[in-house]
């Protein structure tokens, strides 16, 4: 890439070491290792059922792998839960949308500010000045994100009523609101049309470029992945079969056989 990056790609921030996960007798992931460098856009690709989402769920603590470890900033995390990872600065979106359906767009994004909310329920009930101050800051940040994602006109709509593409945007917004250093995106562009995909790519690159947020994304659309990511890891049947820059991956024979070969 020719342009000068504001945030230079740095040291590994997230390391996945020898993860194995199985459900009963079915092996979802076998002995998989890869790393994510600070400030990079990292893609995980692979055919259906390759274990991509399971991988994210292991990193985020929703699944507990039978084997292997996850290290964050060089520090191994012994007992991963979604909550602990959120506190360490790792946020995510979900494949099948996990928004708070009956809440407005603004409220959804405000929930993302949870870790920047220090006041307790009693202080909230009494509306102490510090609650108002904090709420104001959180709302300002959320409004910033809303205008960044260009969804100002729907901010008071309950998310359940929004079309799919917009819901995906809101989910990205909620992840952004956490001000995390790393965001995992589980198929952020699934089910979108070309225009929406282009928009989403733009947002992902913009976030990465302006805030330096490390992005890990799962995507099916090969063209998109090759365009926006710095490095790609390819999974097939729960194993890593390729890892490197988009060009390296593209010319990897195993990858071509397993994945690109079956593309029409």
């Amino acid at each position, binding site marked *: 890439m020719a342009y000068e990056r504001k945030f230079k790609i740095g040291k590994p921030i997230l390391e996945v070491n020898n993860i194995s996960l199985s459900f009963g007798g079915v092996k979802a992931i076998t002995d998989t290792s890869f790393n994510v460098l600070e400030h990079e856009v990292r893609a995980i690709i692979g055919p259906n059922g390759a274990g991509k989402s399971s991988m994210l769920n292991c990193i*985020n603590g*929703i699944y507990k792998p039978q084997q292997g470890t996850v290290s964050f900033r060089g520090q191994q995390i012994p007992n991963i*839960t*979604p*909550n602990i*990872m*959120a*506190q360490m600065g790792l*946020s*995510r979106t*979900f494949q099948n949308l*996990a*928004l*708070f*359906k*009956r*809440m407005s767009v603004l*409220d959804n994004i*405000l*929930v*993302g*500010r*949870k*870790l920047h*909310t220090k*006041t307790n*329920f009693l202080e*909230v*009930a*009494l*509306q102490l000045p510090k*609650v*108002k101050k*904090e*709420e*104001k800051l*959180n*709302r*300002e940040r959320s*409004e910033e994100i809303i205008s960044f994602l260009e969804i100002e006109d729907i901010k008071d709509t309950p998310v359940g009523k929004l079309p799919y593409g917009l819901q995906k945007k809101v989910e990205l917004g*909620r992840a952004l609101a*956490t001000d995390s250093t790393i965001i995992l995106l589980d198929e952020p562009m699934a089910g979108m049309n070309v225009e929406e995909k282009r928009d989403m790519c733009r947002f992902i690159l913009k976030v990465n470029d302006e805030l330096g947020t490390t992005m890990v994304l799962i995507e099916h659309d090969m063209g998109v992945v090759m365009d926006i990511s710095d490095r790609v890891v390819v999974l097939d049947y729960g194993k890593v079969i390729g890892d490197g820059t988009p060009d390296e991956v593209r010319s990897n024979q195993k990858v071509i056989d397993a994945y690109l070969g079956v593309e029409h």
Partner: protein
Amino acid sequence: MKPVFMTYTKKDLINLAVCMFLSVLIIPTFITTEYWYTSILIPWLCLALATIGQQIVMGYTGQLALGAAGFMAAGAFAMFNLILRVPDLGFVGSLIVSGLIAAAFGILFGLPSLKVRGIYLMVATLASQFFIIWMIDKFGWFKNYDSSGIITAQDIVIMGKPFTTPLAMYFVCLAVTTVLTLLAMNMARGSTGRNWMAVRDMDIAAESMGVSLLRTKVQAFAISAFYCGVAGALFAFCYLKSLEPVAFDIKLSFKILFMCILGGLGTINGAFIGAAFILLFPVLLNAIGNNVFHGAIDATIISSIEQVIFGGLMIIFMIYEPLGMAKLWENLKVSLKSKLSSSGTKSLKSSAQKSE
């Protein structure tokens, strides 16, 4: 940039002013019959308060809990014992501590919500209902070893002044309910309420945003039980004026559940609407029975009809308007507004623009 922080809009403040005006000035001036205070307004306020408790745990946090009456009993008997044994606490102090004692039970019986959900949680929370009533019945200490089964509640004395007339008791209930309702609204509209609703709508995503499921659920159960406890104490001291465990049986829990659902899950004003409906509907049916049919219909049949209609309404609301009467009320206001403005101005377009 636009102003972004406003928990309360001008409309809310007007609503509050209207409610306060009605309840503090209009009602005491125009309603003089004791019946209205002792049989309708006081229980309405008490049960609305308990329904807010049920709303917090069920409407906002999405935990199917059934056992509000158990927590009410805990609050009521705690109040009796506190006034009896720790008279220095005073009425208001006792009321708060009774709420806290109920909240402790809430935490205890809210713990299953971490493992089970839905209908199973409902069954698990039923334990609170039966356990608390059993405990009060079993250990005479709670009833001060009274053998008759029904204890008379002590008189309400605040700052040395007795509050014993129906009107005075109405004001006590009104004051407590108003304060607690405002606090509940602050929580529901603030970050606390957002955490509750996040857990309700998608718990795994909430957890990934750093919302602790354990803390949020237990907090909701505790606050809910606090509200029920205070409501129970008021219910016993201002409405029943006596204490007996039977008054807080499973039927009352169901009544509060109905108020919650009919009023509208996840709304605070729905608690008041639901409670008013469930309390006034039997009165209305009786009035119809007496005045239209001149007593030709037996009272037992009327109460059966009441059950049938409640059941039918529950089903209809669940299917057509899960957000309950509060939502109907909102819709009514919106349609009235648009009708008024369209009849007032000639062109519909300008009013549509205005309302936008």
